[in-house]
């Protein structure tokens, strides 16, 4: 999906790279992400996709190069809460129910208007499992419980690390639909995935990573 020329520039990377023990994890990257855009990060295993996302989220320090968020150098304080990161570890407490987990994150991040934990869980396909401890849910259901955060929390950039893992066919369609609504509403998303993404607004941008 190509952004309109007037779209706000959200994220800009120039010659971005990350070093681990003096060894570059990935080759320097240049890309821009505008509001309303979806970009797919592609690369083989170990090519640094997760590292890139963790760096963009602000968990890892910027190794070399420049990273700008809405025109200013990216700092945790000015983007906290506006960037939502969903990694391999889902950040769910096994002893709490999906509803309690969501209530907690909403308590820290705030929630979108006219969206509550119950409606987010219903929309993500967990109706009837709201009060079941997360550790008793299946892997796919856990993933859905984590994805419910996307619906509930206000954020303009989503960083999704393998959002399709463990999901069934309807789950994959659901993620695609989430991405579509998000970008249509002016949000942006960076997604790493091995599976095919069928994005309705046309072919998404690709960011190719090399080790």
């Amino acid at each position, binding site marked *: 999906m190509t952004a309109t020329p007037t779209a706000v520039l959200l994220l800009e990377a120039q010659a971005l790279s990350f070093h681990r023990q003096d060894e570059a994890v990935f080759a320097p990257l240049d890309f821009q992400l505008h509001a309303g855009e979806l970009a797919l990060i592609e690369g083989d295993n170990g090519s640094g996709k997760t590292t890139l996302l963790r760096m963009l*989220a*602000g*968990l*890892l*320090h910027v190794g070399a190069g420049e990273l700008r968020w809405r025109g200013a150098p990216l700092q*945790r304080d000015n983007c*906290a*809460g*506006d*960037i*939502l*990161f969903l*990694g*391999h*570890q*889902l*950040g*769910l*407490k*096994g*002893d*709490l129910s999906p509803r*309690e987990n969501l*209530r*907690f*994150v*909403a*308590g*820290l*991040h*705030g929630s979108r208007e006219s969206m509550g934990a119950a409606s987010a869980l219903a929309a993500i396909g967990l109706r009837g499992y709201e009060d079941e*401890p997360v550790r008793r849910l299946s892997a796919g259901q856990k993933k859905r419980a984590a994805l419910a955060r996307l619906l509930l929390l*206000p954020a303009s950039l989503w960083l999704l690390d393998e959002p399709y893992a463990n999901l069934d066919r309807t789950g994959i369609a659901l993620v695609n639909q989430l991405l579509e609504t998000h970008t249509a509403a002016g949000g942006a998303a960076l997604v790493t995935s091995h599976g095919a993404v069928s994005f309705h607004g046309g072919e998404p941008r690709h960011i190719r990573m090399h080790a």
Partner: protein
Amino acid sequence: MNRPGLLSACKAMLQRDLTLAWRRRSDIAMPVLYALIVTMLFPFALGPEDTLLQRIAGGVILVTVLLAMLLALDAMFSSDIDDGSLEQLVLAPQPLAVMLAMKILAHWLTTALPLIVITPLLAAMLHLPASVIPVLLLALLLSTPLLSLFGAVLVALTAGTRRSGMLLALMLLPLCVPALIFAAGAVAAAQQGLPWIAPISWLAATLVLTLVLAPLACAVALRIALDS
């Protein structure tokens, strides 16, 4: 976008950790049982002689409570690191140090407070005079949060390492010795009818300082632990 205020975020954090602790009630009971068993064994080993027990009672209780707290210490952040909750907490639009302070408070409420509650019972088992019990409780109320805060910083520092339990115990030892000395000093002074306010004041002053600095250090240490 309307971000929740700091107060409601603190409440959410505290509520989550207390709920989690309540769901794992047996973990809370462990340190309490440990303290009960250790204190119960002393009279058996040393004989039920009043004067001897009275003399060592304060020290025994303080050491027992300290060791019992050590049992639950290294679990403070480990589950949050394992399931990714800590990553999400670091990325949340709330000051990390304050959120960690809430976690430490929840930890103190679930491990130290039960121990303080049973302290009068422990004191009775060792024939500690009833008049000294308030001083002992006061000393514990000041020294246990100190231990939780020191412990939290060290747990955060050793967060990335494997088998951090040993390292943690070794690093915590020199830090908790002063707290133990002052707490035991206050109890001993009270037992001899001497003024005990000085060591208690020292404990309180250290607690205030640590209360401010430890969460900040904890936040920095955890950020570094995740940044690798």
